[in-house]
């Protein structure tokens, strides 16, 4: 091995060589690794950036690709410059340097692409009948609902679904974690199978059940289905959080005179707030983005949610107007993106919680 070939030079010289080699190798591997990560991540970031570019610059004509590359030409050096800056300075000077870079980038952006940017594609926000806008009112009236109808439906679906998942899984998680009852281990093991079992395979019988029970093409039906399919996972997460609450505090609440229900509400529940937040955020994002089940179970235009809306809009007018589709897409992705950015810590925990059981 390397160490032995280096045995020859004595003492100080040898240490010197090792130090130089270590420094070189460390810099090399670090830059190689980060270089690798940047390279493989560009294909992910670029399409999102492309969508944003289209939404703020597309007119009819090919102007937006110029905007994309000019903007990249400004932003990439700016990000690299900030990265280098962080290596050498810190604290207040980093802040000032960062602001300076941001200011320069902003000016450069304005100069290079400023005249190509416009908010026209977002006109659906105040003029929600977008297809009417493009094709004329007569043809469109019958085809597309207002974007706000879809938005309201999506919000209703996501919020109700979240509340349902949260309530049911918290109750069940607590009971499974803290109560002894006949069939407990059987119930838990069955739940474990459901938790790993792919619900997507049941879409045909679920459709039939909805049809028979008259819940087909109602938001209520979809909410019940989506919430239920989230349940096994959510129950396990909540059970995990309840498992982690020390028994002592519950015992002490009971010696202080609380019943188990009171102890649950007043003492145990506040301990699992983080878990409830994680389950809630996750359920909301799931409800907000759901596609396959809503596509299968909802038909009537007044029942469309955002995913259906944007799907049909893109099917219908993608060839005519890129820009407006991109703008609706940005509008649709924003809530989940913001939630993801702000609750990332909890969401990662959720993904893990899935296997930790």
């Amino acid at each position: 091995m390397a160490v032995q070939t280096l045995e020859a030079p004595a003492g100080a010289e040898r240490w010197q060589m090792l130090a130089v080699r270590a420094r070189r190798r460390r810099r090399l591997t670090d830059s190689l690794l980060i270089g690798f990560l940047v390279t493989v991540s560009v294909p992910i970031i670029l399409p999102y950036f492309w969508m944003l570019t289209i939404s703020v610059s597309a007119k009819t004509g090919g102007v937006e690709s110029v905007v994309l590359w000019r903007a990249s030409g400004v932003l990439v050096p700016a990000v690299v410059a900030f990265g280098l800056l962080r290596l050498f300075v810190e604290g207040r000077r980093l802040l000032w340097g960062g602001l300076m870079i941001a200011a320069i980038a902003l000016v450069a952006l304005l100069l290079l692409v400023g005249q190509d940017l416009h908010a026209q594609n977002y006109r659906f926000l105040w003029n929600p009948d977008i297809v009417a806008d493009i094709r004329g009112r007569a043809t469109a009236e019958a085809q597309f609902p207002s974007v706000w109808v879809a938005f309201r439906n999506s919000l209703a679906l996501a919020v109700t679904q979240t509340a349902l998942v949260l309530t049911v899984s918290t109750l069940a998680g607590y009971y499974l974690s803290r109560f002894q009852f006949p069939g407990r281990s059987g119930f838990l093991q069955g739940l474990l199978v459901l938790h790993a079992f792919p619900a997507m395979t049941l879409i045909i019988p679920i459709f039939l059940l909805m049809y028979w029970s008259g819940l087909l093409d109602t938001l209520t039906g979809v909410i019940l289905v989506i919430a239920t399919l989230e349940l096994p996972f959510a129950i396990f997460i909540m059970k995990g959080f309840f498992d982690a609450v020390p028994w002592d505090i519950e015992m002490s609440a009971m010696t202080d005179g609380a019943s188990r229900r009171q102890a649950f509400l007043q003492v145990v529940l506040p301990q699992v707030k983080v878990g409830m937040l994680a389950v809630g955020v996750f359920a909301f994002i799931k409800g907000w983005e759901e596609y396959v089940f809503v596509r299968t179970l909802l038909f009537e235009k007044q029942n469309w949610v955002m995913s259906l809306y944007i799907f049909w809009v893109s099917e219908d007018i993608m060839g005519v107007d890129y820009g407006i589709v991109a703008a609706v897409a940005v509008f649709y992705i924003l809530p989940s993106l913001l939630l993801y950015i702000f609750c990332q810590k909890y969401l990662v925990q959720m993904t893990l919680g899935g296997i930790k059981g």
Partner: protein
Amino acid sequence: MARIELRGIRKQWGAVVAVEDMNLVIEDGEFVAILGPSGCGKSTTLFMLAGIYMPTAGDLLFDGARVNEVEAKDRNVGIVFQSYALYPHMNVKRNIMFPLKFKGVPREEAERLALEAARMVRVEELLERMPAQLSGGQQQRVALARALVKKPQLLLLDEPLSNLDAALRLSMRSEIKRLQRETGITTVLVTHDQIEATTMADRIVVMRTGRIEQIGTAEDLYRRPDSLFVASFIGAPPINLVEGEAADGRLRVGELTLELRGDVAGAVVLGLRPESIALDGAGIPARVVDVEPMGRETLLLLDTPMGPLRVLQGGASVPYREGDQLGLTFAPQDSILFDRETERRLADVHAAPPKA
């Protein structure tokens, strides 16, 4: 074997400074203990010696050559962790042979060396076991064998005994000391246990919040602590510390006036070891408040004009009871005086009991 030197070493993470301006020379073949409460930077120092952390500033020298940036794998140091850090998926033999893999030692030779190392720490019967099947003491020995098998120039021990029970700790203490003597490897022990440090090491480095408080032998630390911190950290039961005012060759402590030997004035702290206070009928009057038998010795809590004092008496039982009145005295050279402002020891200053 190596002579280790730290010159102005500092280690910080962001704004947090873990070690500050550390200067220390460890002679070839020496056994040095770094002693301090948790969070004092002793483990950080150890990890810098190992090459796991890199100093933020200063020079770390092995045999006079700067090794700051030499990686752990090139330093040829052996290290034993508090958790032992045995590789859980390898049996004992493969654990011990692991370091040799990277030195290009041929397989038969490696097996021979591993067996030798295992014999040295008396685990040769456990070679095929997995770490999970070993007791704490056995894991400890395997970790030692793994650290020693590559004949390191520096052996680092990070709280190696703290996970063992009391009896085992005692035997491992002498075992490690024996191994160090036999191999002559320069050794650094990190511990928060003063007994461990004083019984095993040639010299002790006391650290506090990232800085060295004092370097010295066990006796230095006990008799001539440089600071209030060292005085109170070393010795069990802890030293008595009473505040006083020095003026005109006299020391006023509580309601008592002591005589001063040496030149000092102002606010001071008087330190008296519980074991250096003698009891007899005469001297400073005291009343017994509590008697705590400690096995071979007995600790008395006394109420005196200087304030409450702890006094250690030999023997499992003593002829004193709560409420007894008695007198105490001490030898002037056993008293230690500190400047209350700087908390440093006042050299060549002592206090003496008032003449009867």
